[in-house]
């Protein structure tokens, strides 16, 4: 097979390429080692779709769509999906283990250090800065998530109701989702008239 980067559409998209388990371990292990920060799904896409050609763009975005409506960390979901796509259940297992092991070791070691040396002025000073930045990161995620989710008054109301249920009523996340999820899904239910309008608009534009 010639490796030509100009070929944007692989010849047989239905047949996943043969990839060794070692390659999967190396690929996802590396992502696990360096996995923090936004744009990680973009990074995985660039490596797996553009560079390695393990799956087509369409397959990747289809996978992303699944992972986005399911619970759990997006990076982990995408990795499991790609592993399964390439090597079945074994590939999915290998992908999950490879992406989780490096952060597990690193974070556990830091945790042991924290509990071993925890209560002294040095670590307290150090962590004051770390947690302040953590707070800033969380706040930035609120902005990003808000930007993506707010498209009307209903969305703003759902954000506020969710917040109040959790903060004031101390309702657990699973009950919040069971309670508000169906209401919100019903509100955003597919409406044929709307779709027709969108279709008409599209046609009018094109």
């Amino acid at each position: 097979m010639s490796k030509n980067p100009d070929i944007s559409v692989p010849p047989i998209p239905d047949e996943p390429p043969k990839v060794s388990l070692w390659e999967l371990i190396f690929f996802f292990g590396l992502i696990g080692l360096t996995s923090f920060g936004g744009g990680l799904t973009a990074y995985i896409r660039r490596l797996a779709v553009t560079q390695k050609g393990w799956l087509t763009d369409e397959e990747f975005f289809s996978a992303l769509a699944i992972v986005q409506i399911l619970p759990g960390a997006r990076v982990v979901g995408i990795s499991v999906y790609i592993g399964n796509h390439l090597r079945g259940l074994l590939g999915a297992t290998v992908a999950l283990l490879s992406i989780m092991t490096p952060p597990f070791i690193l974070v556990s070691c830091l945790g042991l250090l924290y509990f071993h040396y925890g209560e002294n002025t040095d670590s307290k000073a150090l962590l004051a800065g770390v947690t302040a930045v953590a707070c800033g990161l969380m706040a930035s995620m609120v902005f990003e998530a808000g930007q993506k989710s707010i498209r009307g008054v209903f969305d703003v109301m759902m954000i506020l109701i969710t917040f109040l249920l959790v903060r004031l009523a101390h309702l657990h996340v699973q009950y919040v989702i069971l309670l508000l999820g169906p209401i919100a899904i019903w509100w955003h239910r597919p409406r044929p008239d709307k779709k027709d309008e969108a279709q008409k608009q599209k046609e009018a534009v094109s």
Partner: protein
Amino acid sequence: MIQTFGHLVALFMILSISAFGGGKVVLPTLQEQAVNHYHWMSNQQFVDLFGISIIDGPSMMVVTLVGLKACMEYGYVIAILGALVATVAMFLPSSILVLIVGRFWDSWKTSPWHESIQRAMMPISTGLILAAAFIIAKHSIHTIPTAIMGVIALCLMLFTKLNPVIMIVAAAGISWVFLR
């Protein structure tokens, strides 16, 4: 010990399949359970652990550290085992769900309900992340210097593409020098 493992598994398996919009959304419930219900740690320790956990890995590596702390009283070896149990319980159920849904995906990929679910769940996860941010803020922004650092981190995240790990390491250094 076995009982603690049982509590970890039960808690994280539920949180795993509730984490619509990523791991961060379960943070308020995790804090409530780990601090107020099971008394595994103090609020300050919880926020410290969250700060440590974001250095690497997918969102919610803090579950690893909650597992570690929950089993800490039985010694370091059991503590690491607890961390492992918590991590598996948090990441396995949602991964299995991806495999199951992935198998049936093609048949309802074109369904308009797909977009309905996505649009419906996003504001809910935003509200949950907002609640999580409040918890972290309450126990991390104590003084004017920490407030300034938090705001700077927020601005850097929103307006630059700086890697957050660099911010965390820099903040640790700065606060070690100036706040000690």
